[in-house]
């Protein structure tokens, strides 16, 4: 019931602007459409006439040119006449574009395909990876294996559906040939008053990096907090409302009510009416002079996982958690480029902090292989952050450094407190601070291709340090990618 307010307001958002718009808009839309038709008709006629005129002019001009032949007469007529006769000849240039620019681009719908792949060299087997102290998020593991890996191939289609809606569709084809719908959503265009609604499958607007697709990441893999707290990114099946404040400073609020598709929720198997999980976020941003721009935000995500199972990879027992899970995120990004011209040099500094309080019941040994299933209270607050800087020091070349760290928190585990178990029975949850340092260098011969070399020193488990080397390519074809901030 805790999410009822979110649901009510989301419902209000959907109903208020639409109903207000529906009455007057129908008529206006009809008139508009009619006007548009008339306009197009006349423009076509004019274009045809102009084209004819152009051909005639061109012939005439060619005749004149050839008659002048060798004489280097200035092309400019105005030298002689004070009021130049150029309108006519400019007319001659005009219709060509009328015809050409009528097609808004080569791609409709905008189709793009991302290809990526990598070669990795890891000093430890990726199967042994774990974040000590944290329940595993079950997210996609990157890199998949050592040596050669095909990356995700991403196919996306998007277009305006009509003047009121836009549609986005993105498929990810994993190297094991499984196909997943990453995004399939519609988005309003015409609500006005800074309001935007999105429905369907989308990436949640929480945090900064969450809405960025893997090919837009500055490093080959997601920062540790994203891996640990969302299994790389928080996906939603639901509704999102965003509202942009009418001010020169960027101020945006967002609400989402959805079936969350990622850890820490277990909504995919939930069967219930109404709201399941919810998120809220606020972002502010702006410029400082011509050279700097920034954005900062806070986000909140609430879910009620039910029997969220995990395997303790150290002891081999299956355990599960049920209860309340909340996630707070603070994010910040600062971009600098001399005079705002990012072509030659630019610097990007970003960081995000995650905090996750969870409260509920921990059930031990689901399969009764270690002395029988037992349940008791569980309460913990885990956290994590990353901070990174990426510097383009000359065209095509960028260098970046990232530091990320997680904190398992000091869990209060009822089963241990009561003496039923000791921490030796729950080795994965033993306190630890997983850390990692990552260095990368990438080369982008054009806006559509990138080759990256990355080195990471991964200390996410106490017994060992994993040195990871990546060589990765990411290329895009088709529609021009968006320059997201």
């Amino acid at each position, binding site marked *: 019931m805790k999410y009822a307010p979110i649901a009510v307001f989301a419902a209000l958002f959907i109903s208020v602007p639409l109903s207000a718009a529906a009455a007057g808009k129908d008529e206006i839309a009809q008139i508009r459409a009619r006007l548009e038709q008339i306009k197009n008709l006349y423009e076509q006629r004019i274009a045809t006439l102009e084209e004819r005129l152009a051909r005639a002019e061109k012939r005439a001009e060619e005749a004149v040119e050839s008659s002048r032949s060798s004489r280097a007469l200035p092309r400019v007529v105005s030298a002689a006449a004070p009021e130049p006769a*150029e309108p006519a000849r400019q007319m001659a240039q005009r219709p060509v574009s009328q015809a050409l620019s009528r097609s808004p681009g080569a791609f409709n719908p905008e189709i793009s395909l991302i290809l990526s792949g990598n070669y990795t060299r890891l000093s430890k087997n990726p199967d042994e990876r774990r974040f000590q102290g944290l329940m595993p998020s079950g997210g996609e593991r990157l890199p998949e294996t050592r040596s050669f890996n095909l990356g995700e191939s991403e196919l996306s289609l998007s277009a305006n559906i009509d003047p009121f809606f836009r549609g986005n569709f993105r498929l990810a084809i994993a190297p094991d040939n499984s196909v997943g719908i990453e995004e399939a959503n519609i988005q309003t265009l015409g609500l006005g008053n*800074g309001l935007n609604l999105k429905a369907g499958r989308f990436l949640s607007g929480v945090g900064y990096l969450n809405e960025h697709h893997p090919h837009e990441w500055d490093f080959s893999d997601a920062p540790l907090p994203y891996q640990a707290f969302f299994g790389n990114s928080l996906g939603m099946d639901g509704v999102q409302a965003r509202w942009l404040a009418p001010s020169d*400073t960027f101020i945006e609020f967002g609400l989402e009510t959805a079936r969350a598709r990622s850890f820490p929720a277990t909504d995919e198997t939930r069967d219930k009416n109404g709201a399941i999980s919810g998120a809220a976020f606020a972002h502010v941003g702006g410029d400082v002079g011509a050279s700097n721009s920034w954005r900062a935000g806070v986000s909140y995500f609430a879910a009620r996982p039910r029997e969220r199972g995990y395997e303790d990879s150290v002891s081999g027992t299956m355990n599960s958690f049920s209860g309340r899970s909340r996630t707070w995120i603070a994010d910040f990004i600062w971009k600098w480029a001399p005079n705002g011209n990012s072509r030659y040099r630019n610097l990007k500094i970003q960081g995000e902090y995650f905090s996750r309080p969870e409260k509920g019941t921990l059930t031990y040994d689901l399969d009764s292989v270690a002395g029988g299933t037992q349940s008791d209270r569980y309460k913990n607050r885990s956290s994590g952050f990353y901070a990174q800087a990426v510097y383009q020091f000359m065209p095509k070349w960028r260098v970046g450094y990232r530091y990320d760290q997680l904190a398992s928190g000091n869990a209060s585990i009822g089963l241990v407190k009561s003496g039923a178990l000791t921490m030796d029975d729950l080795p994965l949850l033993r306190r630890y601070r997983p850390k990692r340092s990552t260095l990368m260098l990438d080369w982008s011969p054009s806006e559509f291709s990138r080759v990256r070399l990355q080195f990471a020193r991964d200390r996410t488990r106490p017994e060992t340090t994993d040195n990871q080397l990546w060589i990765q390519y990411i290329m895009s074809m088709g529609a021009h990618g968006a320059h997201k901030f």
Partner: protein
Amino acid sequence: MRKCVEIALFMLMAALAPAAEGAVKVFATVPEWGALAREIGGERVEVFVATNGLQDPHRIQAKPSLIAKARSADIIVANGAELEIGWLPLVIQNSGNPRIQTGQTGYFEAARHVALLETPAIIDRSQGDVHPAGNPHVHGDPRNTLYVGEALSGRLARIDPENASAYREAYRKFAEKMRKAIAAWEKAALPLKNVPVLVQHKAFSYLESWLGLIENGALEPLPGIEPSSAHLSEIAARQAVNPARMVIYPSYQYDAPSRWISERAKIPVVMLPSTVGGTDESGDLFMFYEDTIRRLLKGLEG
């Protein structure tokens, strides 16, 4: 949870508040069309220009500040021909502003009203970052400002019908002044006719076609691709056979490749304002063309 409720209430109240009235808010993507909107709109418009003359217009991002500005705009005056394809669609989609969506009265593209040059026969990225519609840098030819201005005055008249005649009148005055100026510039620029030049980026095609300059080659092997030393050597070698008189580059680019060629070929380097505000002397549209021609003529002197 209470916070969420408060935020939601605030959003609801603000969403229902009526929009403010006043001057027509123009969101110009590039300085040249911002300057033109000022010429035609005068006091009746409030112009915001998203980029400046020292920025590479191809590489702008959908910054938060731009999204915030687009939310309250009455009209977007874009260049079009895909110059802003990387960022403008994103800004418009996120603005929550129905007036400026593509296809609405509040969305204006300058390049739709002029003839585009260099429309590619093959649209393939092996040819670099080509714009399928043609070369987008149309403001190089001042005659294009007349077409764009005429269309823009018509559009402003539709958005602000009360002042329709004022926009038309302002355009008439602007056109008269511009035609006279064009005549004077063409006269002054006569020595530039048929002068062969090298360009760093293909940003001057319209200027060249207006003044009759001949482009001997571009230092960027393909649009948007940084010059390689091999390509530069090739261009330098071409100088022996087909010498260019100067090498020109736009104000938002580094001069290193142009300087290199300049030293090899012993020809002057000329930096041209890429748009209004690209140099200190190009504060408005008229000053922009004047400064361009002045710099070219100076380059010709050696």
